[in-house]
């Protein structure tokens, strides 16, 4: 059989479709994006080479507001790591210790992850509707009329109002990953600690958390890179408005490309996003390694 499996022609035949698809759509375009980022190009006429001008403009121009957009997505990343993940971890720890209704809680908490972000966005648009939305209706019903807002239209509240559904939707995702980790902790470890008189809190602190650290790391990476890439819900809820208060790099990229036909600049944003995602993933890996 080894003779059969050693035949290099088979390697080529079996791998070729995957290589073509993967390199054609994922790998080559990274190079192409990097290349386009050095040009002034509207997609139709000739490209004009301008070196790092796109990058310079992106970081310095106030009218594009890239730094503001990046700041927004970093804020989202921070909220995700420091609010969303602890909540998800808490739920995972609670559900992981065989409580009544574990399956039902788990399944319902995970449900929002499966629903299309457009549907979630449309629902929250309705929840936030200033006249008939559930939020303002509820506030009026309990006499808090002065707290009602035009949530997505007010510069003061828009960013917060956009972040809430984003954070809410993916709590279940992180919870599921962490829950799988909690479940993988060997029962003997837990039981031994319990026998030694450890409380629930101590078991979590000294047994479970160190055990699931690799999964916590993955969750942190996903939370940060996911925030940097976030697009769908913001696109549906505000598309970066009002007055660019909720702009993130992805919405900026799309409007550069398809509203202003600035393909070079759009590519520049794409390249920066890839670099940031990889950079943060590496950084988080390092931080977790340091701790060991």
């Amino acid at each position, binding site marked *: 059989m080894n003779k059969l499996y050693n035949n290099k022609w088979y390697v080529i035949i079996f791998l070729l479709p995957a290589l073509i698809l993967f390199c054609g759509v994922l790998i080559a375009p990274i190079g192409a994006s990097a290349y386009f980022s050095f040009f002034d190009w509207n997609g139709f006429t000739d490209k004009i080479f301008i070196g790092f001008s796109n990058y310079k403009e992106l970081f310095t121009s106030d009218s594009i507001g890239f730094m503001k957009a990046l700041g927004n997505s970093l804020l989202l990343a921070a909220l995700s790591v420091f609010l969303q993940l602890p909540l998800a971890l808490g739920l995972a720890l609670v559900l992981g210790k065989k409580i009544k209704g574990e399956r039902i809680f788990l399944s319902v908490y995970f449900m929002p992850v499966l629903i299309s*972000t457009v549907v979630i966005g449309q629902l929250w648009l309705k929840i936030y509707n200033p006249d008939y939305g559930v939020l303002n209706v509820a506030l009026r019903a309990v006499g808090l009329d002065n707290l009602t807002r035009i949530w997505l239209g007010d510069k003061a509240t828009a960013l917060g109002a956009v972040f809430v559904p984003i954070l809410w939707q993916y709590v279940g995702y992180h919870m599921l990953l962490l829950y799988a980790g909690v479940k993988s902790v060997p029962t003997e470890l837990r039981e031994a600690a319990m026998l030694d008189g450890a409380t629930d809190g101590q078991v979590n602190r000294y047994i479970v958390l160190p055990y699931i650290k690799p999964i916590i790391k993955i969750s942190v990476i996903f939370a940060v890179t996911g925030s940097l890439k976030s697009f769908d819900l913001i696109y549906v809820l505000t598309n970066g408005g009002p007055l660019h208060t909720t702009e993130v790099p992805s919405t900026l990229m799309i409007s550069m490309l398809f509203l202003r036909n600035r393909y070079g600049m759009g590519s520049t944003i794409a390249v920066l996003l890839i670099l940031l995602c990889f950079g943060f993933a590496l950084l988080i890996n390092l931080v977790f390694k340091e701790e060991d």
Partner: protein
Amino acid sequence: MRTTTKTREVFLYIGLFLWLIVNLFPVYWMFTFSLKSNPEIFGDNVIGLPKEWLWSNYTTALHTGNMGLYFLNSAIVAVTTILITLAVALLATFALTRLIWRQRKTLNKFFMLGLTIPIHASIVPVYVTLSKLNMLNTYWALIIPYSAFSLSMAILVCTGFMNEIPRELDESACIDGCGVFGIFFHIIVPLMKPAVATVGIYTFLQCWNELMFANVFISKSALRTLPVGVQALSGQYTTEWGPIGAALVLATFPTLLVYIFLSKKIQESFIAGAVKG
């Protein structure tokens, strides 16, 4: 001591139930307002069950709102993507786990890069290429990128399952006179059903819900997928919420229906995609 643990437990369950409601409410609200008239939604009966079940919202969404068509488009794109992803991934995984050659490990790592590459990376070049090939506004404009972006996860999952198939099976098939293709098609592929299900579910959800590519690569309304269609519909019916609610339900119920029956399998597919990566 007893009472404090009891009270703690009570608070724990109150918390769990509150979070349950926070997760169920939007979906419940969606289902109910999809069956209501404007006066009910806007005042008489904001969060109760519909007093009069207005199924006509669904007919409006399906016919006037073209949701039936968008649903079909999404289904065509999702099913084709799943088939291509699976075929390509199974072939590649066979080469990566069974065939003997140098750089096998390196290439596996290379494919795993795809797990971290954001779709933003390829949007401009793929858009430009598709437009040069006159392929914008075709199903392929979505199917090919979706398959490519599902590939890494598919190879990851398939590798795990294929490594568990004992090599003795290959050998006995080889002795029985099977060639490489024979072994692949008659021995390996039939045993990969669990992997096929996991990859299928995960890929389905990715394509069914994807917005950015679907929004950019398709501008013809006849080819829109559900997420873009729902967006368009909500632009049309800004003042009538019932039909929008119906459209949202139509876009969501296949996923939820499958989830009700296969919740464990679906959760496993998400765990497989993340934790092993």
